[in-house]
């Protein structure tokens, strides 16, 4: 019997990093949308906040696409 603790640790680290990156990016994206509304309520355009959100969501999508690529390949 040869328990592969290294692989288990690797799964843990990879999953933790991936999940933290994804949830953080997505949460900042949502926060950006919220701040955009606040900015618009105060007479601003909110373009900066919207751009930030879009970048967050785009990176999020890219990370997910890479994940799917890993299953398929």
């Amino acid at each position, binding site marked *: *019997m*040869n*328990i*592969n603790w290294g*692989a*288990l640790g*690797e*799964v*843990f680290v*990879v*999953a*933790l990093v*991936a*999940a*933290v990156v*994804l*949830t*953080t990016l*997505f*949460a*900042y*994206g*949502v*926060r950006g*949308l*919220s*701040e955009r*509304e*606040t900015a618009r309520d105060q007479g601003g355009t909110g373009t900066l906040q919207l751009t930030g959100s879009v970048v967050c969501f785009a990176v999020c999508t890219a990370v*997910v696409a890479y*994940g*799917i690529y*890993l*299953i*398929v390949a």
Partner: protein
Amino acid sequence: MDFSLIVLVVVVAALAFDFTNGFHDTANAMATSIATGALKPKVAVGISAVLNLVGAFLSIEVAKTISGGIVDDTKVTPVVIFAGLIGAIIWNLVTWLVGLPSSSSHALFGGLIGATWIASGADAVHFGKVVEKVLIPAVASPIVAGVVALVGTFLTYRITQKSRENVVGKGFKTGQVLSASLVSLAHGTNDAQKTMGVITLALIAGGTLAPGSNPPLWVIVACGLAIAAGTYLGGWRIIQTMGKKLTEIQTPQGFAAETSSAAVILASSHLGFALSTTHVTSGGIIGSGLGRKLAEVRWGVAGKMAVAWVLTLPAAAIVGALAAVISTQGSWGTVLVGGVGVVLALGIWLASRRNPVTAETINEPEAAEAAPVAV
């Protein structure tokens, strides 16, 4: 019994198992989305079914997952595989009746181990491999997923703490639909694969395929369709347990739980670790419950689930062993086991009708809108 006839019987039994696997595991991907109201129940199971079907076609390392050295494949015959499948199906149906999200993979492994043990002796089962490939991941995976989900949930609430409630609610509803879809896809690549492996093993054992063959296209199509059909039917009882009874779930939590589960499943498949999707997603839900400032987790329900996890493999092994004792007696034995299996399945289905849980009754009208609390 005619050789090709027994192989046909095994294929039918394997597809029946795949079907129960589908409706048993719908909850893994969709329970939290349904509980938070991010998706309507029927829409959720529809999306999940389609993605399971797609996932079934993406898989590559099929037979490896299932044969994987847990039982000695030179000593396995189609009859033994059949007995193992009957054990797995019956355990899946019983746990569904009581609404417990037990692992379909463990039911399958348990059934095969029990049947092989009885038919070919204990030395045909590689117990070292069982510990390495089944027991260790069973303990580790819910903990890993739980910790990841805890961190993810905490960060999610932290970051959006001062944001507007309506934007947060809407944003994470969308996020949840996406993350749940990813879990469904991962599930298709993972669990449909296991049945394909079993059918391929039976075809090899029956001499239809050369050893080491890849699954033929019709096997992939049949398995994909069976798991998708099962998924669409929806295991509403288990969805209720996962989505409502374990802990109350809000959309940001559901999003974090599913993202974590998907990440754990993807990471482990990529690195060659065989995990149970059921264990991963349950751990994720509990972790997200803890991450929201230790929102109440109903440990009684969690404890009952843990007991079911521990029991799954031995229980399915015992049923599989019994089935093997009878079905290796000859053709009449195999027919008898098949008949008893069908009667039991029918009986369980009839019992479930007395207290139905359906798409209509799964959520009380107060399907919770997300209202993030300060962390």
